[in-house]
């Protein structure tokens, strides 16, 4: 590749052609402030509108300042990143942005984690000249089951739009209006509820301000915990343990499973369980479904629906209900681990401890915002009582722990309660892309071939490539597996299936980049994709450390089937652990 020589702040530097000034400066250790720019390396997500104009620098020979995030270097370029002219411009632009931004930082959900707040501190903004005469753009507050849009706080960085349209191809959001009143919104500025939004929460995950945040359910959880008539149990999703530590300043990728359990117990949960238990259960049901369809296929049944698609990601379920309703009989009917957990908890476990369904409160800790919506779906409740009462995100758990004045980093490690706290390594890897299908493969292989796997690590299924595929030798039968994370990638696979081009037998789909580790409810990555990689590593480490690594070997799962469900896909299992899907393509403004 061609190398370009240039000078930045008096220092010579050589970078490949096509490098931006911002990146070239980084190689010199010069950190030019950025606001709207976002580069999730390795995931192919770059937001580069050049809109905020905070990153402007002086380039010799140019009339105007250049935005360093979006200007490529050229041979002999002389760049100055912090002249008086640059600093004045940067400060004035920041004052402008703040002049159209609410000042309720103290009570803002993003306080302390806000890129805009950080930038105001960095630039030493102490007052906004002329604020008293400055009109602010205001928009209607939009509260959906998962996400709150408080667009008064939008700074038009367009990151959410990039995630929603380019990466997820959901198309719920677009920049609307023009000029001062321009904002990112669903069609007709309706609420997200009336849009094709999947609640994947990727808009929230990248929003630099408090414009997009999760609906806060921590108050409901506190109320439940303080109600003496209620038995409150909690389940924690696999990806939470690999990220929660970040809320307390721990290095990304630090596993905090034990501390998390202790913290939850300290908060007052009567039983601290693990969604991983339900993940093992999912594998039993979904794996059996796969084997069933595969058996029919091998027997020559032409009508069998293959590939089978995983169904544990609620944003993905919302996505195909909106966009591919004609294919709603392809995904597995297995409920997600969160819902399987709730369903078993409010039947099997409630009976065990002799608590009435209404008096048992199930809380889930999820890396996900779509889970908030999922647990509110009508089909997951019995006589109006939901299987899972409240779903809170990893971030909300962080708030709860801080609120309770628990010194998280100093907590001892404790174990989950039994029976629904026991899990295998196969369940843990549900938290990262490729994990569900790897777990399913471990079980399905052994059930199909009757042989025991010597090596359970299917490395070919791992990685961060948006679409991956692998062929596994299933005792002579080549099982073709596809994996996609990100709904845009999922869409490609679905279009292939629709067009009859798909060769896969099974496909795993996760809505978020990296799978649940990159979920919309996780600690904010602030545009640093190495954080996601560290979390994935932690997940695989936990898997390796487990003695049991195949779902069908989980003794409490075996017991559950013996005592309660019978066998996978039994009538009872169908009733409690499976679901059906809806056509939501018309669920918009009018048609």
């Amino acid at each position, binding site marked *: 590749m061609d190398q370009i020589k240039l000078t930045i702040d008096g220092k010579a530097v050589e970078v490949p052609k096509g490098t931006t000034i911002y990146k070239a400066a980084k190689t010199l250790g010069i950190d030019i402030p950025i606001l709207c720019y976002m580069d999730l390396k390795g995931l192919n997500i770059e937001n580069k*509108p*050049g*809109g*905020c*104009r905070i990153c*402007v620098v002086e380039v010799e020979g140019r009339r*105007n*300042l250049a*935005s360093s995030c*979006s*200007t*490529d270097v050229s041979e002999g370029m002389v760049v100055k990143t912090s002249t008086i*002219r640059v600093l*004045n*411009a940067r400060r*004035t*632009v920041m004052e*402008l*942005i703040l*002049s*159209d931004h609410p000042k309720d930082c103290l009570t803002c959900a993003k306080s302390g984690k806000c890129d805009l707040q950080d930038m105001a501190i960095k630039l030493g903004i102490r007052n906004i*000249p*002329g604020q008293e*005469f*400055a*009109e602010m753009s205001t928009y209607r507050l939009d509260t959906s089951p998962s996400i709150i849009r408080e667009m008064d706080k939008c*700074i*038009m960085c367009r990151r959410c739009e990039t995630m929603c349209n380019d990466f997820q191809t959901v198309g719920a959001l677009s*920049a609307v*209006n*023009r*000029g*001062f*009143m*321009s904002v990112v919104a669903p069609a007709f500025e309706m609420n997200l509820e009336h849009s094709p939004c999947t609640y994947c929460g990727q808009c929230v995950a990248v929003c630099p301000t408090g414009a997009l945040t999760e609906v806060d359910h921590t108050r409901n959880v506190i109320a439940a915990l303080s109600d003496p008539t209620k038995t409150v149990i909690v389940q924690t999703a696999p990806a939470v343990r690999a990220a929660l530590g970040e809320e307390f300043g721990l290095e990304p990728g630090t596993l905090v499973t034990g501390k998390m359990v202790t913290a939850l117990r300290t908060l007052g949960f009567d039983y601290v369980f693990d969604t991983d238990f339900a993940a093992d259960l999912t594998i039993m049901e979904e794996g059996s479904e796969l084997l069933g369809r595969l058996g029919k296929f091998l027997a020559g049944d032409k009508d069998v629906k293959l590939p089978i698609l995983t169904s544990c990601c609620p944003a993905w379920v919302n996505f195909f209900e909106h966009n591919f309703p004609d294919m709603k009989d392809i995904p597995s009917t297995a409920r997600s681990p969160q819902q399987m957990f709730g369903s078993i908890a409010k039947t099997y476990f409630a009976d065990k401890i002799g608590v009435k369904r209404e008096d048992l409160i199930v809380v889930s800790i999820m890396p996900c915002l779509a889970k908030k919506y999922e647990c509110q779906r009508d089909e997951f409740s019995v006589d109006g009582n939901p299987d899972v009462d409240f779903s809170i995100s990893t971030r909300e758990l962080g708030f709860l722990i801080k609120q309770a004045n628990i010194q998280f980093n100093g907590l001892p490690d404790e174990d989950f309660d039994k029976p629904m706290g026991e899990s295998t390594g196969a369940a843990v890897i549900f938290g990262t892309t490729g994990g569900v299908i790897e777990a399913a493969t471990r079980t399905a292989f052994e059930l199909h071939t009757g042989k025991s796997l010597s090596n359970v690590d299917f490395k070919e299924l791992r990685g961060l490539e948006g679409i991956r595929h692998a062929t596994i030798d299933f005792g002579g039968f080549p099982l073709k597996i596809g994996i996609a994370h990100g709904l845009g990638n999922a869409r490609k696979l679905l279009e292939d299936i629709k067009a009859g081009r798909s060769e896969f037998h099974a496909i795993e789909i996760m809505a978020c980049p990296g799978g649940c580790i990159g979920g919309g409810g996780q600690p904010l990555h602030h545009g640093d994709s190495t954080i996601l990689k560290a979390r994935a590593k932690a997940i695989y480490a936990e898997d390796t450390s487990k003695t049991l690594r195949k779902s069908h070997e989980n003794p409490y799962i075996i017991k559950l089937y013996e005592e309660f469900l019978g066998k996978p896909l039994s009538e009872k299992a169908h009733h409690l652990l499976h679901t059906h899907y809806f056509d939501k393509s018309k669920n918009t403004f009018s048609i």
Partner: protein
Amino acid sequence: MSKYSMHLLVCGGTGCRASASDAIVENLKTELEAKGLSDTVQVIMTGCFGFCEKGPIVKVSPDNTFYVQVKPEDARKIVEEHVIKGRKVRELLYVDPKANEVIEDSKHMGFYKKQIRIALRNCGFINPEILDEYISRDGYLALGKALTEMTPEEVIKEIKASGLRGRGGAGFPTGLKWELSRQSQSDKKYVVCNADEGDPGAFMDRSILEGDPHSVLEAMAICGYCIGADTGLVYIRAEYPLAIQRLKVAISQAREYGLLGKDIFGTGFNFDIELKYGAGAFVCGEETALIHSMEGHRGEPTLKPPFPSVSGYLGKPTNVNNVETFANIPVILLKGSAWFSSIGTEKSKGTKVFALAGKINNVGLIEVPMGTTLREVIFEIGGGIKNGRKFKAVQTGGPSGGCLTEKHLDLPIDYESLVANGSMMGSGGMIVLDEDDCMVSIAKYFLDFTVEESCGKCSPCRIGNKRLYELLDKICKGNGVADDLTRLKNLGLVIKDTSLCGLGQSSPNPVLSTLENFMVEYTEHVHDKKCRAGECKALMTYSILEEHCVGCTACARACPVGAITGERKQLHVINPAICIKCGACLEKCKFDAVIVQ
């Protein structure tokens, strides 16, 4: 046929009229009558000759004698000497100031060289809906010449040598643009004509498309030949129905003649043109925004580079020029680059079309060589200021431009001189302002426009222009403080310096240039709470003149807030603390007793 053998044409333009051309007509008629000549010599009042500086004007036809600064009493002399004896009245003849020569035949007057119509050469001459009329004026000859006698490189060389620069704004050299587009390697390229004239008060491009659509089509085909494109797209404002209709007619006629389509002039060159419609967004005049709009997106600009010549419409190399630029091309090829570059100034060649409007007598479309002074345009071609008011400023370049003042009147107009003085060529709107125009309000007007037209993508333009507007509004409402003037300037400079596209980079110009040239008006608004033009209502005070007031009570009854007190047949008084300055009393008073200061 005519019974008259001689005509005396007296200028009836507003300027001359003010200096007694009516009396001249009257006197001429009386003189002719007295001499018994009223049946053979006709006196006619005409429109403006556009030479108001030397008015009143009397022209004698058929010998083209041009008398200047004629006084009513000169009528006798003209009749006795010129009409009867055939001797010209020498002291009334125009003296060329440069050569110090008396001009006898007005055809030799420099004045008539003030306007040269190149881009407008066919406007008003041909029927735009009949291709034959265009052909009769050498239409499509330049395309034929290019295709059959020249290589694309030779054509580009010719355009480069002509010195033609983009007429839509910043003045990028057209030949160089074509060369860059030619150099881009691609299987598909596009030629785009930017006909999204969005400058409020400019209509040059529309007039060309309505009056001479083929010249643009021909030039686009030439451009296609040069850069290697077979498709042309005209991006035109949907608000221009007539221009759209004439373009459609022109395209279909050119196709019928084989001047568009396949194998043009039997050379194997294919080129066809489609229309794309704008939908009312000023920012779409910016190339990248225009391209996004053509692709069906919001017309938001993106950073350049990459330039459209490398990656434009649908990611393909795209050459964008505006209507007036294209309209110049065929003439350059037919008459040669040397001819073209002999017109204009050192760096700005050829002519420029301006839409002259505002407080000027001859509102109109004019085309002058680059380097013509503002004075010539305003006071000669434009016929001076309406209603004999005093000239204050001229705004060029629309919302991206600035206000030039008295001291700039002798400035030769070209790209560089306008920019150096805080304005710009822009697309060619030229709005003349008089003493009744408040410069702060004018700046506010343009900012209002920019705020409405900002796409909202980058923060300096989205929020900064809004803040500029608010500051100006505050000043106009009498709430300005000294600090606001400093803030206006800093904010303006930062918006210019940091905005993403040309709209934001030039939007503060109306503020900055008025600050520069009319600081005293700003300080009057801020410190003295006074608007000398009387435009800022909030800064006016209403009072009643004792000597005129008859105590009729009409004003008190009209006042909606009860600010006026006074008994019948007694002096009435306005309480300034209650007065909302609505002007109702002023309207009602029959005795001119209410005054506004």
